């Protein structure tokens, strides 16, 4: 009956393992309850800077922001609640004296390569101070070669910089439901590499949303939500992105209004 004892041992082991997290979950958190969608400071700071944004705000010039992204940069039918709108609101709140213009350019089904080709024209037309480029989802879904993906972002960033705009990169959403179907890691890694190479601030949307999911602020797994969850998540994303931009532009003190 050696194997029966083995099984018993395993079950005991399993019970201990299962009990450990349960205990961890039960212990009351020492800190007071965090406000919803709190983000750890390290995800909202960047070593890279946004000199054009800094100058514009300091010189009281209008801050012209262009968001370029795929469908996850909007909520179908509720554009006013999507993160670009909340970003604009949060920036206005932080710099009441400044004019903040924000436009959104959706490239719903374009890969980074396709978008990169269109960027220069967009920038010439709108003359933004800051381009927020959300990318990666379409490439991950189409399983584009990560090397090609990296090259495309690389070219896009160089073109944007060359056209005189600051750039912030935004990566994929954390989407636990489609984790078995979309492989995000190669794309997350490659965006990070480009951001490091060009000293571009990278807003790690994936890590932030994962943090919220793990912390239980949002149940991103569940199917039972209507547009409400999307609105809440986007509101939080917009605020976090505003903080991130303000930090990267070294406009910190203003932010603590």
């Amino acid at each position, binding site marked *: 009956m050696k194997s029966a004892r083995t099984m018993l041992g395993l*079950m005991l082991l399993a019970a201990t393992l299962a009990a450990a997290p349960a205990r961890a979950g039960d212990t009351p958190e020492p800190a007071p309850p965090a406000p919803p969608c709190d983000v750890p400071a390290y995800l909202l700071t960047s070593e890279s800077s946004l000199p054009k944004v800094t100058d514009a705000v300091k010189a009281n010039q209008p801050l012209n922001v262009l968001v370029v992204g795929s469908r996850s940069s909007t909520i179908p039918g509720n554009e006013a609640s999507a993160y670009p709108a909340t970003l604009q609101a949060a920036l206005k709140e932080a710099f009441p004296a400044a004019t903040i213009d924000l436009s959104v350019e959706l490239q719903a089904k374009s890969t980074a390569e396709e978008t990169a080709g269109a960027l220069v024209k967009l920038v010439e037309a709108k003359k933004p101070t800051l381009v927020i480029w959300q990318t990666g989802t379409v490439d991950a879904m189409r399983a584009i070669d990560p090397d090609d993906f990296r090259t495309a972002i690389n070219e896009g960033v160089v073109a944007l910089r060359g056209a005189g705009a600051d750039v912030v990169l935004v990566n994929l959403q954390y989407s636990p439901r489609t984790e*078995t179907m979309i492989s995000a890691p190669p794309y997350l890694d490659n965006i990070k590499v480009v951001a*490091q*190479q060009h000293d571009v601030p990278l807003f790690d949307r994936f890590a932030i949303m994962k943090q919220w999911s793990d912390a239980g602020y949002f149940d991103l797994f569940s199917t039972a939500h209507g547009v409400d969850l*999307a609105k809440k998540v986007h509101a939080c994303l917009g605020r976090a992105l505003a903080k991130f931009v303000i930090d990267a532009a070294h406009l910190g003190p203003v932010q603590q209004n």
Partner: protein
Amino acid sequence: MSSIADPIAGSPVAEAKAEAKVAAAAPAITLPATGERELRLDLFRGLALWLIFIDHLPTNLLTWLTIRNYGFSDATEIFIFISGYTAAFVYGRAMLEGGFVIATARILRRVWQIYVAHVFLFTIFLAEISYVATSFENPLYSEEMGIMDFLKQPDVTIVQALLLRFRPVNMDVLPLYIVLMLFLPLILWLMKWKPDVTLGLSVLLYALTWQFDLYLSAYPNGFWAFNPFAWQLLFVFGAWCALGGARRMSRILSSNITMWICIVYLVAAFFVTLTWYVPQLGHIMPKVIEQWMYPINKTDLDVLRFAHFLALAALTVRFLPRDWPGLKSRWLRPLILCGQHSLEIFCLGVFLAFAGHFVLAEVSGGAALHALISVCGILIMCGMAWIISWYKHSADKGASKKGADGNADLAGGGA
């Protein structure tokens, strides 16, 4: 216990052709003479299976136990290497004793089994995502749900899946294994001639892959997530070790210099990995090194990953002797059993990972539930391994004498 000493010529086909071919077998390669099963291989293959299962689930507490968090390589490397090792061990013997045709025939039968297993998993996958596609309406993820578009063309999708070109995430290992096994007869035939040249050719192919960016395309677009042109290196290296290479390397392996190089490399890799998980440490890393090193390419088996695996393997061989009594202990028994039935347990692991995703999606639960699902999965895998070995050794005993299929589980080659 089926051992590698089982008579290979047990199958009638083998007996018929064996005589003709035996003479052709020039022993350029050597196989260990003993019939003792190498339990270390089973142990680590079992471990790799557990880790692959955990890595396929959403991140949870147990994820922190998997080796990919502590260095560059992960369970896939262990798995492919051991697969190459055991496959060469079993079919190399068949080739020496039965000849090329016999060995090829047996390898192809194995390939067929793995293929069927892959198709079986694919049907389960289809069921899972069809369910998700019909039940999931979340405006937050309207873009990501576009991935279900292939369901609109089931005819094309299914045919592409049968051609191994449509491979959902987490189902990449079996197609890689199928391709590697298909080339095993050629590899073994070359090894029989000159093992070192074979390994050299494999390294050359690996280098060419990096130089000329060779890859296999996938459906609907993209490429194979595990590039067979690159990953063959681990498989062939495993085969080379099994056919005498490991013994010839024993002096290098037991030298202290090797040990310290391995330790230094593993520690360095550990610190690099640490900066991924503790981003506050990120600024310690010199930018020059970051730019040189990243991205660490899993698709093409980055040299850093391969070296990391070699270092791990060298230390393991050094500090875990083949006759370590712990290998017989009942605490490691579940791991070893899983490793001995690797194809079945691998498939079960993929299935359980799907099932785990499903449960997590339906029942909102915290960290505790996530960890519980991982533990249950591992228990189910152990239970299944135990049942399979019971079938092999008790239930089937009267029905079929140990023969060709007695070997299949070692050759289980472990998908």
